[in-house]
C-alpha cells in the first residue's frame, strides 16, 4: 500500500521548497505588479499600467534583443567548448581518477567568488593588462586594444568564462553513459572517427546538450551583474533595468518586468524540453 503513495512522498520535499520559496513569494510579486506607484508610496490597485508601460516601451525590446544576442553567442561558444572538453575527458582520458582530477581543476576557480573574478579581468584585459602588454611586447599591435574591456566582447568573454562549466557537466554525464561497444560496432560498420562522432555520439548526447543549453541561456538572460561590470555600464540588461527600478523603489514596474521575463524564459525552456522531451525519456521507464 505504501508503494502507491511513495512517489508522492518522494516529491513532497521538493514541493514544499517550491511552494514556500518560489510560489508564495512570486504570488506577492504578481500582486505587486498590479499596484500603482505614487512618488514614494505604493498604492494597492488593480491596474495594468505597469504591464502597458513595460510592453509598449521600445526599451524593453532593445534590452531583450541585447540579451538574446548575448545568450545566442554565449550558447554557441560554450557548446563548442563544452562539447569538446567533455569529449576529451570522457573518451580520451583513460584513468578515471585523472579525469575526475582534471574535472575538479576546472571547478576550482568557481570557489573564488564571482565578484572577485569579475574584478580580476581588469588586470587581464586593461590597457596595462597582461594581454595588451604581451601583444605589444611581441609587436602585433602598437597601441593597447581598448575593445578588450568594457565592451560586448568583454561581456561575452565573461559569460563564456563563467558558464561553460554548466555546459560541460551535463554533456559529460550524457557522454559517460554511452556504451563503448557502440564505438566498436561503428568501427566494424566502417565508420571513420568523424562519422562516429556525428552519427553515434551526437545523437546520444542530445539530452546533455539540451540541458546545458537550458542552463546557459537561463543564466545569461537572468544576469544583471556581469553586464553591468564588464560592459562598464555601457550596456543594460533586462534584469539590470529591474535593479534600477528597485533602487528607487519602483517595485510595481520591476515586478511587471519580472513577470514578463519569467513568462518569456519559461516558454523558451518549455520549448527546449519538448525538443528533447526530457520528461518523456524519464517517464517511459516503468
Amino acid at each position, binding site marked *: 500500500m505504501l508503494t502507491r503513495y511513495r512517489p508522492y512522498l518522494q516529491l513532497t520535499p521538493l514541493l514544499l521548497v517550491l511552494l514556500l520559496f518560489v510560489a508564495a513569494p512570486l504570488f506577492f510579486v504578481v500582486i505587486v505588479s498590479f499596484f500603482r506607484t505614487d512618488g514614494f*508610496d505604493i498604492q494597492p490597485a488593480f491596474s495594468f499600467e505597469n504591464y502597458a508601460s513595460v510592453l509598449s516601451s521600445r*526599451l524593453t525590446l532593445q534590452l531583450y534583443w541585447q540579451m538574446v544576442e548575448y545568450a545566442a553567442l554565449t550558447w554557441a561558444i560554450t557548446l563548442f567548448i563544452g562539447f569538446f572538453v567533455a569529449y576529451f575527458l570522457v573518451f580520451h582520458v583513460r584513468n578515471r581518477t585523472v579525469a575526475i582530477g582534471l574535472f575538479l581543476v576546472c571547478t576550482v576557480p568557481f570557489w573564488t567568488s564571482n565578484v572577485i573574478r569579475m*574584478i580580476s579581468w581588469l588586470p587581464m584585459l586593461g590597457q596595462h593588462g597582461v594581454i595588451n602588454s604581451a601583444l605589444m611586447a611581441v609587436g602585433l599591435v602598437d597601441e593597447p586594444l*581598448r575593445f578588450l574591456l*568594457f565592451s560586448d566582447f568583454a561581456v561575452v568573454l565573461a559569460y563564456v568564462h563563467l558558464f561553460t562549466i554548466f555546459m560541460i557537466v551535463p554533456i559529460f554525464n550524457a557522454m559517460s553513459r554511452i556504451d563503448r561497444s557502440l564505438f566498436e560496432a561503428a568501427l566494424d560498420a566502417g565508420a571513420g572517427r568523424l562519422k562516429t562522432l556525428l552519427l553515434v555520439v551526437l545523437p546520444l548526447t542530445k539530452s546533455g546538450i539540451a540541458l546545458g543549453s537550458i542552463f546557459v541561456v537561463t543564466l545569461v538572460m537572468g544576469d544583471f551583474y556581469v553586464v553591468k561590470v564588464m560592459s*562598464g555600464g*555601457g550596456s543594460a540588461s533586462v534584469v*539590470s533595468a529591474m535593479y534600477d527600478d528597485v533602487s528607487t523603489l519602483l517595485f510595481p514596474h520591476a515586478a511587471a518586468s519580472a513577470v514578463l521575463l519569467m513568462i518569456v524564459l519559461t516558454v523558451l525552456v518549455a520549448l527546449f524540453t519538448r525538443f528533447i522531451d526530457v520528461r518523456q525519456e524519464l517517464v517511459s521507464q516503468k
Partner: protein
Amino acid sequence: MPKDDVKPESAVNDKATTPTDPSRRAVIKGAAAVATGAALAGVPLTGFPQIMKREIKDITLRHVGVSYAVQRAIGEQASKDLGFKIEMQNLDTSASITRFVTQPNSVDIADMEGWQVKVAMARKIIQAIDSKKIKEFDGILPIFTTGSYEGRKVSRQGISPYEVMYTDAGATKIIEGQRQHLTFLPQVFNADSIGYRPDKVGREVTEWKDLIDPKFKGRAAILDIPNIGIMDAAQALESRGDLVYGNKGNMTRKEIDITIEALIDLKKKGHFRASWSTFEQSVELMASGEVFIQSMWSPAVTAVLEKGIPCVYAPVGIKPNGKEGYRGWCNGMGLMKHLTGKKLDAAYEYLNWYYSGWQGAYVARHGYYSPVPRTAKAHMTPSEFDYWYMGKPAAEVIKSSHSQPIGQVGTVRDGGSLAQRFSNIACWNTVMDENQYMVQRWNEFKAA
C-alpha cells in the same frame, strides 16, 4: 567621578524602572553629558555608570547601511565604549533601502541618504528622534538644522537634508522648518565633484564642462547610478552652456530628454570609456589609467593617492554667473519604528556616542565630514583638523586611516575648507518626481 551620579543599589534593582521614569532619564542624560565631556577632553569613554552597563549590556543593535558610512571599525569602537553590541551590516544603497522597506523588523538603526528619508517617512518605518535627547544637537552644522550656511541659504535643488529633517512626534509626515523632532541624524556628508589625473590632463579643472570636453574622448567616465548620474550630466551640460535647469534635482520631462539625448550623443561619439557603479570601480579606472577624468567621490580620490598616483578633486565652486557648484549628499541614521524600551535607550546612547567625536575624526581621514565638527576636532591633531576641515596647508604629513601618507607638508586638501565647499553646493542627491521616466530614459542611454 561618574559614580556620584549612580542611584543607590535598591533603586537599581527596582524592576519598575521604565524609560519614562524621570530619575532614570536624568541618570542617562547625566551619563551622556559626562561621556561627551570626557570625549571633548580627549579622554576615552570609559566612564559610563554601572547602571547603564548592567541594563543594556545584553542588547544588540543592528546598524545597516553602505560601507562608507557604516564602517566596521566604528561599530567595534562603539561596542567597546558603550558596553553593548553594535552589529554592523554592509549592503549597497539600493539593497539597504529595499531591506528597510520590505523587512523593517530586521534592522534597528537604518543608514539612509536624504532622499531615502522621504521614502522611509512615506512608508512609515522610522520613528521621530527627540532632538532634546541628542546632546550635541546644537553642535550640528547649520546646513542641516537651519538650511543656511555662512550667511547663504543652502541650495534647494534636489533634496537637501534640511528639508527632510523635521517631523512631528509621531513621525507622520515631514514638516519643513525647525521642530523638536527629527527624522534622521546626519552622519557623514560630502560635496562631490570631478576627479582627474593632473599628470594626464595637464591643466587645472574647475568647471563641470571639462567632463564632457572632446579632448578627453574615450578617457572619461560617469556615474552609473541613474538618479545621481543624471545630475552630474546636468551640471556638465549647464556648465557647457547648453541650457539652464529649473531644478536639477527635479527635472521636467523635457529637461530629462535633453540631458539623455546629449549623453547618448556623447556615448555614440565614444566619449565615455565606462560608467562605474561602485567605489572600487571608480578607483581602479583612475589608478589603472583607463580614465583621466570622471565623476568621483572624495574618498576615492584619497584611495588613488594612497597608491602613489596623482589625483585631484576639482574645486568647482559656484562662479559669479551662477554656474558650477558641488553636488552634495548626506547619509544619516534613522531609528526604526519598532524600537522601544531598553533597546530604544541603547539606540539613543549609540546616537550620542556617534556625535561624541571618535567617529567624526575617523571618517575625516577618509575625506568625509562629520556634522558635528567641534567634537571631531577634539579627536584629531590640530594640523589634521586644519587640513581636513579648514582647508589649510598641511603642517605635517597627513596620513589616511590606514596610516598611508596622502598629503605632504604644505599641500591643501581638494576644494579647500568645509566652508568653501558647502557654501558652494549647487544641488543635492535626490529622487525626482519623474523618476520612473528618468530611469527608463537612463537605461536607453545605456542600451544605446
